């Protein structure tokens, strides 16, 4: 019996040592991201039957060390993380455009106003070369405005591209992490005959959450303990111990938008999953490019090309100071057409497209696919699809653009960016730069009437002409862009804040269950220390009991 008590006391010592070790582990990991507090679960040792009459308890053991977590919360945390990261990135990037698009000193309206003011000055004094020089100066300023806003957008674009590249790299690291953690978790569980490798599980959950920060995912645990991770649309990113690899590339339309390709583990074949990527930072960047960056830059280009063309057209209808027919003041940059690398037809250059109606331009990009049954033109902004069946499948017009696809083979596709690069490449024509007298202010053709300002007055009228663009005047169209960016930034900010609150609530809930509380651990420390001391005391009592027994026998 004496030995039984001693064993029981020792079992207590050992168990409380484990408890203290677990408490110490908790305290040490108070700041470890993704850590779930652990608890040593106690259970009685098998009791001993004495004779036929009763059972005597045999002490305590640590049945298991469990981590405190809620499976449901973890999956909620993943989806909230993906949504919050998405909205946060989208809002952050949109804010960058919002920050300068209406800046009084750098934006378009001020440059436009100054330019048309000098045109009015030319109306008032058409024979003055000095006044004409100021027209050129303000024209240069206006062109620089277009250029600088567009190059600002280009900077944001390359920043976004780099961020997406980083995001893809991070995804690849995380998926292979999760795959190798799967391997270790399954191994450890097998070795521990069912005991949970808590820290490994935490690490894997954390890796999954970090992955959710990059894109929206679904996680399904299999019966062996693996996490199988898929994109929200079901493309498999991690399957057991194998991870797919993502690539960001413009291989299909070189120089066009970057697309997301997926290469399954051990395979060389790639699948284009661009349209299936949503949520997370990657989804946020993609939405920013599609909903804000492309439309804004295209619309800016649309204003630039309509302005340049309409202004040139009016200049060419007039006469200069020498009585010669007017010449263009601005270049009219061509549309960007990118043939797919897989094209087999002979149509690569020249431009298979031309603008026929500037006021009908939409500011969209288009993907044109020539098929056996006709040509399909997808508007990449509205996702609208237009079909052109033979015989009108190679020569047709859409949204102010004339298409001539003669020479294209069935299966060929093209990416058309009608106005993307216009604002960047707008410049002044050399003819007028070199000779301000060539600005066509005169309207009448009869002889060099130097004081004629009729055409200058018509040029000045272009400022308020409401038929210039779909939205009205140049300024109307720009205002529309400013308003749209403002609304998108404002609403995405509201959404991002709301989603952040939601995420915080879920994080809070997770912390409530899984997080380490130092006060609690301190209390546990005292508790376990006292229990340990009590067990030690039992040993002391057993010893004195034995001592008195031995003394009685002596």
């Amino acid at each position, binding site marked *: 019996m004496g030995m039984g008590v001693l064993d029981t006391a020792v079992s207590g010592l050992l168990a409380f040592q484990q408890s203290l070790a677990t408490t110490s582990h908790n305290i040490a990991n108070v700041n470890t991201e993704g850590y779930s507090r652990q608890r040593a679960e106690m259970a009685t040792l098998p009791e001993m039957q004495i004779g036929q009459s009763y059972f005597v308890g045999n002490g305590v053991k640590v049945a298991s060390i469990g981590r405190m977590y809620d499976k449901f919360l973890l999956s909620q945390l993943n989806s909230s993380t993906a949504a919050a990261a998405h909205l946060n990135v989208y809002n952050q990037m949109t*804010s960058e455009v919002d920050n300068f698009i209406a800046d*009084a000193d750098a934006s378009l309206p*001020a440059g436009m106003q100054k330019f048309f003011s000098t045109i009015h000055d030319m109306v008032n*004094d058409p024979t003055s070369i000095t006044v004409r020089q100021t027209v050129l100066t303000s024209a240069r300023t206006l062109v620089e405005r277009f250029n600088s806003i567009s190059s600002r957008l280009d900077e944001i674009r390359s920043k976004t591209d780099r961020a997406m590249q980083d995001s893809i790299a991070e995804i690849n690291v995380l998926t292979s992490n999760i795959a190798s953690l799967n391997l270790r978790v399954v191994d450890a569980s097998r070795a521990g005959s069912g005991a949970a490798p808590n820290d490994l599980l935490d690490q894997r959950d954390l890796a999954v959450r970090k992955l959710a920060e990059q894109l929206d995912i679904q996680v399904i645990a299999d019966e062996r303990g693996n996490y199988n991770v898929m994109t929200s649309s079901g493309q498999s990113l991690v399957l057991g111990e194998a991870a797919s690899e993502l690539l960001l590339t413009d291989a299909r339309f070189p120089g066009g938008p970057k697309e997301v390709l997926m290469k399954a583990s051990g395979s060389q074949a790639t699948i284009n999953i661009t349209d299936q990527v949503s949520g997370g930072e990657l989804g946020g960047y993609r939405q920013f490019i599609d909903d804000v960056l492309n439309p804004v830059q295209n619309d800016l280009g649309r204003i630039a090309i309509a302005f340049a063309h309409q202004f040139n057209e009016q200049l060419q209808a007039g006469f200069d100071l020498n009585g010669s027919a007017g010449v263009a003041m601005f270049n009219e940059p061509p549309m960007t057409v990118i043939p797919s690398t897989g094209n087999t037809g002979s149509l690569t250059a020249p431009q298979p497209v031309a603008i026929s109606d500037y006021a009908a331009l939409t500011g969209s990009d288009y993907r044109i696919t020539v098929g056996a049954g006709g040509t399909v033109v997808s508007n990449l902004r509205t996702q609208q699809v237009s079909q052109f069946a033979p015989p009108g499948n190679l020569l047709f017009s859409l949204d102010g653009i004339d298409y001539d696809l003669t020479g294209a083979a069935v299966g060929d596709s093209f990416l058309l960016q009608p106005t993307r690069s216009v604002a960047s490449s707008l410049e002044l024509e050399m003819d007028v730069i070199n000779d301000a007298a060539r600005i066509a202010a005169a309207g009448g053709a009869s*002889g060099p009437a130097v004081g004629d300002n009729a055409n200058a*007055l018509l040029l000045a009228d272009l400022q308020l002409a409401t038929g210039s663009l779909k939205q009205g005047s140049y300024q109307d169209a720009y205002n529309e862009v400013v308003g749209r960016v*403002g609304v998108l930034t*404002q609403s995405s900010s509201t959404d991002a804040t709301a989603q952040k609150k939601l995420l915080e609530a879920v994080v809070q809930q997770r*912390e409530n269950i899984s997080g380490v*509380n130092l006060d609690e651990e301190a209390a546990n420390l005292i508790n376990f220390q006292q229990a340990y001391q009590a067990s030690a005391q039992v040993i002391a009592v057993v010893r004195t009991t034995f001592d008195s027994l031995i003394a009685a026998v002596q």
Partner: protein
Amino acid sequence: MRIRTSTMAMQDQSVSAMLAQQVRIANTQEQLATGLKVVRPSDNPAAAVRSLILDESVELKDQYQVNIGMARGRLAQEDVVLGGVVDVMQRLHELGVRALNGSLNAKDRQSMESETRELLNEISSLSNTKTSTGEYLFAGLNSKTVAFTGSPVTGGYVYGGDSGRRSTAIGEGYTINDNDPGDAVFTVAAPAVPVGFPPAAPENIMNLVFQFAEHLAANQPDSSDLANLQLSLEQVSARRTSVGARLVALDQQEELNAKLTTDEKALLSKTRDLDYTEAISRLNLETTALEAAQQAYSKVQKLSLFNYL
């Protein structure tokens, strides 16, 4: 299960509370620094767009006011010059009346002739007045060409300009002529002719005055001269009246533009300018809130059971 939270969550919460306050303060600070309540379109998209529209409208009206100033300069100059021509024509008309007086002899008429040629020279030089921009006021659009060539001695006044009129914009969709071509100002449509002569083609005033001088020289005054001088005076006076009417129109439009600009500027200010009183009191509130969050943080941080172990 007991209600609990983690140490990290508590820490995070107080830190995010401080960060959120700091963001609010930064926003208010930016508003105070710029004097605007709409710094970016997202602050109030509708107000941002309204500001752009008002900005354009105000600046456009500023330009219209500049145009009005320029047009007024030209028209006022034309008014002064035509006033001079009218004065000369009135004197010529007096001479025309006197010339028909039967009691005058050839010598009297010769002295009147030299005055007439002098006055003709004056009209001719007035008709070739240049503007501040170096253009001939009465040459139409052909404004760098001398308007009228000819001589008081040999006559033969010829118009070198064209019939074009120049306009400038003084309001939205409102243009006004700010010049009159010389052929319109100085031409009499149907000059009088001596009895028995066939009707004459339109003739410019200077040639009519020259004709009068020639008749004086020949001591053969004709009643058609007086009629022509009368017609010339009426012609120039009529042009001058039209100039005066346009000057009045400029004044009215200028006043209207100024009034509209004042209204728009007031609206613009209301749309985007900051209410400093409100912003400063908001800043005070926000700094107080930040201080509170900081105090809460440092107090909570001091709490730990470990301090008592």
